[in-house]
C-alpha cells in the first residue's frame, strides 16, 4: 500500500529543472530506496516532500492528505521525520538532549491542538517534564546502544555515531515514514554493516523507511523497492533484481555502449 505519493512533482531553479514530473511512491512498511547519479535531484525531492523546499508544481499526498507546500514543522508533526546529508545535530547539546529535542512535539497528546496550554503547563512543571523526556530519550538511546554516550556532547561523537544519533533523534518522534539522506556516506564497512542492522530494526518496528544511498551493496541488500532518478526524471522503479538488470539504469550510471 502506498503511504506517500507524489504526482508530477517538479522543482525548477531558474533555468535548471532539478526535479521533472516525478511520480514517486513510498510503500508502507517497506524500505524504499531512491538512487541515481549525482545531481539527479534526489535530495531536492526529499526536501520538497519534507517541506524544506516548495515544489514548483505537482502534488504530494501523504496518508490520504495533501501536504503540498506545508511548512516543514507541520509536515514533521504529521509523521514524516528525516535526517540530513550533511549531519545536522544540535552540536552544543548532549546526546540525550538531542534525542529529547526529537521528542519535542510528542509531549502533548495532539500535535496541533492545545499547544498553548501545553506550553503553559510545561512552564510550571518544567523539571517534571524534563525528567519524563529524559527517561524516554534514554529508551531510544538504548535502542541504538548509545546509553554510555548519553552525556557526551554531540559534536564530540565519532562520525558514524553522529549519523546514528541523527537517526535516533528522528525516530524519537515516532514517525510513520523516516527519510534517510545518504545515511552511509563516509562510513567504513563495519559501520555500514551496523547501519544495515539498524534500518532492519526500524523496519521491523513498523516504520516505513525511504533512503537515498550511493552504496549499491547496501541498497540492493536492504531495499524492497527502488526508484531511480536521472537528471530530475524517474527512469525506473522496481525490486532490486529488476533495477539491476534495467538497461536504462545501467546507461544512466555507466553510459551507453556506442558512445
Amino acid at each position, binding site marked *: 500500500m502506498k503511504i506517500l505519493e507524489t504526482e508530477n512533482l517538479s522543482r525548477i531553479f531558474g533555468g535548471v529543472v532539478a526535479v521533472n514530473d516525478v511520480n514517486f511512491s513510498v510503500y508502507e512498511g517497506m524500505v524504499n530506496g531512491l538512487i541515481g547519479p549525482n545531481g539527479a535531484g534526489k535530495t531536492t525531492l526529499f526536501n520538497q516532500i519534507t517541506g524544506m523546499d516548495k515544489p514548483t508544481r505537482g502534488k504530494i499526498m501523504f496518508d490520504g492528505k495533501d501536504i503540498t507546500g506545508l511548512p*516543514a514543522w507541520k509536515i514533521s508533526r504529521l509523521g514524516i521525520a528525516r535526517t540530513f546529508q550533511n549531519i*545536522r545535530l544540535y552540536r552544543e547539546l548532549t546526546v540525550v538532549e538531542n534525542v529529547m529535542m526529537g521528542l519535542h512535539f510528542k509531549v502533548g497528546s495532539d500535535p496541533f491542538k492545545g499547544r498553548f496550554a501545553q506550553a503553559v503547563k510545561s*512552564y510550571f512543571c518544567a523539571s517534571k*517534564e524534563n525528567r519524563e523526556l529524559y527517561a524516554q530519550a534514554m529508551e531510544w538511546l538504548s535502542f541504538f546502544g548509545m546509553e554510555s554516550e548519553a552525556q557526551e556532547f554531540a559534536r564530540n561523537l565519532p562520525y558514524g555515531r553522529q549519523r546514528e544519533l541523527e537517526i535516533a533523534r528522528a525516530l524519537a518522534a515516532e514517525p510513520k515514514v523516516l527519510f534517510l539522506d545518504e545515511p552511509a556516506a563516509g562510513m567504513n564497512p563495519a559501520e555500514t554493516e551496523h547501519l544495515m542492522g539498524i534500518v532492519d530494526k526500524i523496519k521491523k518496528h513498523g516504520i516505513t523507511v525511504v533512503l537515498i544511498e550511493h552504496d549499491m551493496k547496501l541498497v540492493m541488500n536492504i531495499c524492497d523497492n527502488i526508484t531511480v532518478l536521472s537528471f530530475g526524471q524517474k527512469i525506473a522503479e522496481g525490486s532490486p533484481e529488476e533495477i539491476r538488470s534495467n538497461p536504462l539504469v545501467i546507461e544512466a550510471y555507466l553510459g551507453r555502449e556506442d558512445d
Partner: protein
Amino acid sequence: MLNFFQLIIIYAGIYALMAIGQNCITGNTGMLSLCHAGFFCIGSYATGIICKTLGLSFWLSLPVAAICSAVVGFLIGVPTLRLKGDYLCIATLGLGEIIRNIATNMNPVGLMSIPRAELFGYQFSSRNKVTFILLVWFFVLVAYILFRQLSHSRIGRAMTAVREDEVAAQSNGINVAKYKIGAFTLGAAIGGTAGCFATAYTLTVQPSSYTFMVSVMVLCMVVLGGMGNLLGVIVGAFIIEFIQYFPQLVGLSSVIPAQATQIIYGLCLVVLMIWRPQGILGRDKYRYGDPRSAKERLVSFFRRGEKKGGKA
C-alpha cells in the same frame, strides 16, 4: 566611595534586566540583535510620559512599558525573521537607531523633573540609594526566576533548538518563526522595564543617551558573562558597570578620562575572548538532560574547579 558602590549596584541591576532580555534573544535563541537601547528608550519614555504628562503612578508604567516594548519587539521580529547573524545585527542596529531618532525629533530635550516612584507614600529617590537597590534587585530576581523557568520549559527547549540548528529544529516539528518572534517580544519586554527603573532613578529622559553604545554594552554583558547563562549575564552586567564607574570609584576621574573606560572594557573583552571564549560562567553543560539530583548538582557546582582541563 560607598556612594559609588551603591550607584554601581543600581546600574548593574538596571543593566542586568536589559542583559536578561538580550540573553533571551541572543543567548537562548541565537539571534545577534543590537537594538536593546531602543527598547530601553521606549521603556524610559513610557515611565516619563505616564508619570509626568499623565500624572499616573510609576507602577502602572511598568506593565505599559513592557507591553509597548514587546509590541515594538514583535514588529522588529517579524520583518527580520529571515535574517541571520551579521545581517540581522545590522538590521536591528538600524531599527534601534530609528527609535532613538524618532524620540530626538519629537523633543530633543526629552523629559525633565519626572515625579518619583512611590510605594505606600514612600518615595524612591536617588538620595536614598539602599531602598532603590532593593527595588531594582527585587525585579532582577523576579526576572531571573521567570526567565530561568522559561529556559527550562518546552519554550526554552525549542529556543535552544532554534539556536543550535534552525533546519534541524524544523524537522523536529518546531515552528522556528514563532519562537524567534517570541524571543524578540519577551526580550524587548524586559528591556522596556529596565528603562522604567532608569527613569525612576535619574528622573529625566534624554533621547541622546540611548545610543548604539548602550546596545553594544548590553551585548558585551551577555557575551562576557556567558551566553545563555542567566547568572553569568548578571555577573557580566556587574563587571561592565564596575569598569564604567571605575575611574570615579578610585577617585581618578580627573586622570583617567571617561572615554578610557571604553578602552578598558574593550581590553577586558579581548583578553576574555582569548582565555575564556564561552564567557565567565559559560554555558551550563546540562540544560534539561540533567540526570543528577539537586544535591549532586550542588556538589558538582562547588567542585567545578577541580574537573577543569578534561573537556574544554
